[in-house]
Every structure is written in structure tokens, then in C-alpha cells.
């Protein structure tokens, strides 16, 4: 099936007008602590929903977003779970104080990561669940049945926390919010404070429930 963008956008607007309660964020937002990301999402990661963050370029700031979320959740004394499909998280890259509320799941394969997400998304103890699938082979991730994603969507809807899926290409079907990080950072960024690096990230909304974040937050 195919349809023009105008048609899809019109359909989304129609659905938004007809079923406004479906667009309401059930549990509010969880501030990501990264200005451009929070702005793109209209306040923060929506609780009870999946958000996909696609790092299309290398060094575009995906890991800095994780560091920002660690700081934001620690400030709010909330828990964060990181399901690390490619075992890439570096504890020595963030301050030790930002690790004390983190539950880190070091997976060996994408299948393990998806199984872990299926468990943790139902656990009501986490404000943020990050499913980091970067570093996994694209052909393996493409084999993930769509039903598994729908199952994750449904489970997230009953959860008080936000779910952030990090990928390197658009992967999650029917995801309400998809954002892209598509600009590689220059070496000069290595000499800047991390908060400044985070504020300088280029986050572009690719998909929102009504075709634009502005409409959503108005």
C-alpha cells in the first residue's frame, strides 16, 4: 500500500480531531536533560509511549543523550534502565554519581535485548527505559517480527515510564515519535563542556502522532 504524504498527514489530522484522547500523553513527560531533544518532543520523552531516536550519522550525539538522561533522572531521583544490545555503554565516560540509579543490561545479541525490553517495559519501577540497538547488524534487526514491536507498544502504554529506542536506521513500526540525529560532531566538540555539546545537538523530528510536534503541543 502506498499513499502521498499529504494524504497521510490529512488522515492523521482527521484522526487527531476525531480521537484527541489518543494523542494525550498518558503519564506526562520525562525531561531528557538535552534541550534540543526536549524541545523537539514538546517537553520531554512521553511516558507510556515509545520514542525512536535514529542516529543516522556517526558521532551525532546518541550517547550524549543517554548521559543527559542519566543526569536528568538522577536529579529527579528516578530509575533508568539501559538495555545495551551491543554492550557499548562506558561507565567511565560519565560521573560515578550518575550511575547509582542505573540498571544496565549488557546483552550479547539483539534477541536478548528485545527479550529484556519485553520484561522491563512491564516493570513499573523505571522512569526511563532505553533500548539501545545501535551497533547491531541491520539484517538481524530487520528480521524482528513486527508483532514484537506492537507487543512492546502495547506494554509501554500500560507503563508509567518512557521508552526510548536508539537505532541507526528507522526500525520501529508505528512508532508515535521518531527523531533523527543526523549531524556528526566535529573534533572541536571534544574540548567543550558536555552540557554545551548536548545543547548543540541537531535533533530533527521525523514523525509525530499528528505529523508535527507543534500541532501536538499547541
Amino acid at each position: 500500500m502506498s499513499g502521498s504524504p499529504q494524504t497521510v498527514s490529512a488522515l492523521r489530522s482527521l484522526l487527531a480531531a476525531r480521537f484527541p484522547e489518543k494523542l494525550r500523553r498518558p503519564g506526562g513527560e520525562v525531561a531528557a536533560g538535552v534541550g534540543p531533544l526536549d524541545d523537539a518532543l514538546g517537553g520531554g520523552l512521553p511516558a507510556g509511549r515509545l520514542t525512536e531516536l535514529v542516529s543516522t550519522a556517526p558521532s551525532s550525539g546518541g550517547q550524549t543523550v543517554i548521559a543527559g538522561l542519566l543526569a536528568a533522572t538522577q536529579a529527579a531521583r528516578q530509575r533508568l534502565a539501559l538495555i545495551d544490545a551491543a554492550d557499548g555503554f562506558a561507565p567511565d565516560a560519565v560521573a560515578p554519581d550518575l550511575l547509582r540509579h542505573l540498571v544496565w543490561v549488557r546483552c550479547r545479541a539483539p534477541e536478548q535485548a528485545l527479550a529484556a525490553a519485553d520484561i522491563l517495559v512491564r516493570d513499573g519501577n523505571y522512569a526511563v527505559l532505553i533500548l539501545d540497538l545501535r551497533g547491531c547488524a541491520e539484517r538481524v534487526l530487520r528480521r524482528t517480527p513486527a508483532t514484537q514491536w506492537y507487543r512492546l507498544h502495547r506494554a509501554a502504554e500500560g507503563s508509567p515510564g518512557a521508552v526510548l529506542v536508539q537505532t541507526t536506521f528507522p526500525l520501529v513500526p508505528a512508532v508515535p515519535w521518531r527523531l533523527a540525529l543526523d549531524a556528526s560532531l566535529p573534533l572541536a566538540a571534544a574540548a567543550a563542556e558536555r552540557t554545551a555539546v548536548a545543547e548543540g545537538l541537531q535533533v530533527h523530528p521525523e514523525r509525530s502522532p499528528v505529523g508535527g510536534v507543534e500541532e501536538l503541543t499547541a
Partner: protein
Amino acid sequence: MSYAVLMVPDFALHALCRAEAELRGQPVALVAGEGRRARVTAASAEAAGVMPGLAVTLAMSRCPGIILRPREPAAEAEAQRLLVAAAFTLSPRVEATASGTCTVDLRGADLARSEALLRRHAAELALAGLPLRAGVAATPLLASFAARCAQPVRVVDDIPQFLAPLPLEFAEPTEAEAGVLRGWGISTLGGLTALAKGDIGQRLGTGGIALWERAAGETTRLLRHVEPSRSFAAEWSYEPPVESIEPLFFKLRRYAERIALELRAAGLVAERLALTLLLEDESDHRREFRLPEPGADVEGWLRVLHSHLEGVRTEARVTGVRLVARPARPQEKQDGLFDTGLRDPASFWENLARLAAIVGDDRVGTPVPLDTHRPDAFALAKPAEAVPPPVGRVVHPAYGPTLRRFRPGWEVDVACAEGRPVRLAGGRLEGAVRAAAGPWLASGDWWKPEAWAEETWQVELERGGLYLLARRAAGWSVEGMLD
């Protein structure tokens, strides 16, 4: 109210059906004797028209498809252990009276609590395949009468009223005594005890007096106490060996139910579970699961075991299984007034255990940096119950994009000019270097065999991307991406 009797009617049959998944819901009969003398001793509800004492050939003609099986001593022993474990949760004075029957001395116990526990056990054991009947009364004999007519728990308050309608067979008269009493028109215990004990003694002798006393519930006896289990383990075998998870899981549940009940009876919880699969090629698969929240919750255990077994692939079929629960004292604690604790502690710890079953015990937890400058040195600790408050103002803020490691680092050939990297080749990452910052030199543990030293560089590639390069004695590697 001093005694309770726990009994399972048709115990041998239920023990067999409980142990074998394929017998559930099928017409099954237990058979004793051989050849033409073989007789049915018990039959399941599904075996319509088949009753104890029936010849096997008749049973087969009345119920085509009936499964005829001899008694299974191992299954009965396991079911008996479950029953005894349930009895020990009521009182430490327990008698294993007979196969499928336990008598408990409840003196000193709270009756309301005991009755509530019995009702809970009746529900739990029914789910575990043992339809429990329990009676509570002043003597062991009365309690056994009560158990025989319980649905599923009967507490006897008014003894004469309880005994009056019971059939005479409850008092176990001899054939001669039964014949005489039938001749007098007496068919209930109430009818017998309505007569004077002395008159019965004159007519039926000392046996008659003993019968009257049994009918009046006056007979009492000392219990032969048994010791509670001290090993919380189970081992069973499969013949033929199994290849799939379903038969494994069916028996795991059965044995876990018993072990959990034994732990609860002893006031303990499981801290760890050790699972061993014995394989056909005489090797084995062993795994020990640390339960972050020690407990005796069977469902929680099974979720952990299931998560692990789903991903297990063995070289040979499974011929046996051993499950051992490492006991511990239950934890007791009071939360602090300002703690931001867990919303659902049970789910939190249980889910951690399930994750550990999937990815491994050593790959889930909260990272804690080690006291060293060695790169990537950390340990995974058990997550804290409460999220600690943030420290005050940060003295040394972090700089630059956050490192995302490649574990292990990617080997790469680095071409240098004037001592600086200018091109990467020969590995998973190739290309010209646009800019490089470094070197940073670090070393440590020089007094140990695992001494380390490295030179690191941050490089930006022409095609985009910031990477951390390390040069060690073995050569160059890409340690990760600055992201």
C-alpha cells in the same frame, strides 16, 4: 481443637497423574495384581463406569481408551513430601500417618490461623494436582473423620452433632459386628452411641466397647512425629530422554512447589537456585541463579528458570534434572522516611532475576567504577533499593561527547605522519583523518603481572565521526566512538 488431619483421597492415583503431564484429563485407573487377577484399585473421574475392584478386562470394555497403570512409588513419595511440607506449616509436630495422610498436633496453635492456612493449602495443593481434604477436631480420630467428609476443610465444634449422621463404617466394625448392628437397625455412629456403652460391651464384648468408643470419637493416641526436611532439593529422571522444554517445565513446577513449601515450613526462603540438566551423553548443563530478592514464590522461580531454559541448547537429550534451592533467612527491613524506594519491589527483583537468566548473572546491575585509572574498569553491583540523592555542585564537569565503547576494541592499522594519525586502514574502520587530538599517555599496575600502558588519540575522520584510538604493545585499536 487440638489435631488436624490432612488427607488426599485416592492418593496413589493423584500422585501418578500429578507426576505425568500426559495423564492429565485422561481416563486413568490404577491396577494391582497380574493376569486374570488384575483388578482396578482406583479410577479417575474421567474413567466413567470404572470402579475399584473391577476386573481389568471389564474396565477396558466399559471405558475404551482407559489408561491402566500400576502404582508409581517415586511419584507417591514426592507427593507425600509435599503433603508433609504443608503439614509442617501448621505445627512442628507432624505424623506421616499413612500414604496420603498426615496428622498434625495443633495444641497451642491459633485455630483461626490454622483453618485459614488449611484452606490456602487446599487451594494450592488442588492446583498442584492433590485434592486435599482436612479436618480439625479434638482427637486424631475425630479429625480423620472430619477430613473424610470435608469439602475441603471441616472444623468439628459440636462432636455429637457431627458424629450422629456419619455411617457406621467410619468406626471400622468387624464384619461380624457390622452384621449384628445391621440386624438391630443401626447404620450410623449416632445410632450406635445412642445405646449405652456398657450394654454394647455386654452384647459384643471388649471389641464392642472399642467400637463404641471409636464411634463416639473418644479414642486417642500418641503421634509418631517426623522430622522436617533439611535438604531443599529434588532430582528426577526421564525415560525416554526429553528434547523440549514442556516436559521439563511441567516437572520443574511440580518439584518447585514442594521445595517452596518445605522452605516456607522451615521459615526460610531461597537465596539461589541451582539447576542441573543431566544429558544423555553423560555430560551436564549447570547453572546457578542468584535471586536478588530471596523468596519462596514458585511463580517467580519458574519465570527465572523459564527465561533461562528458553535459550538453552544442549548437545544431547535430557535424561534427568536436579534442582537445589539454597536457603536463607528472610530479609526484614524498614524503609527510611525520605527514601525514594521501589514502586513494586517484588516485580523489580523478580525482573532482574529474569534478566540475569537471559543475559547472565554478571551482566545485569548497577555499574560501579573500580579504584584504578585502567580504562573500562568497573564492576556490576546489585541495584540500590532507594535512589540516592544527587551530590552537590559538580567540581569537574564532563567534557566532550560521551564515549561509546567497542568491546573488544577494533584492531586497525594507523598510518602516522609527524607522530600523528593521518589514516586508518585494514580494519572495520577506514578512512583519512581530518583532525586528531592527543596523545594522552596512561599506565598503571606496573607492579602486577597485568601491568598496562597505552597512548590514546581522539580523531575525526574525513567522512565524519569521532573515534578514540589506543596504541598498546600489541598495536592500534579503535576503542570506541565519541558520540
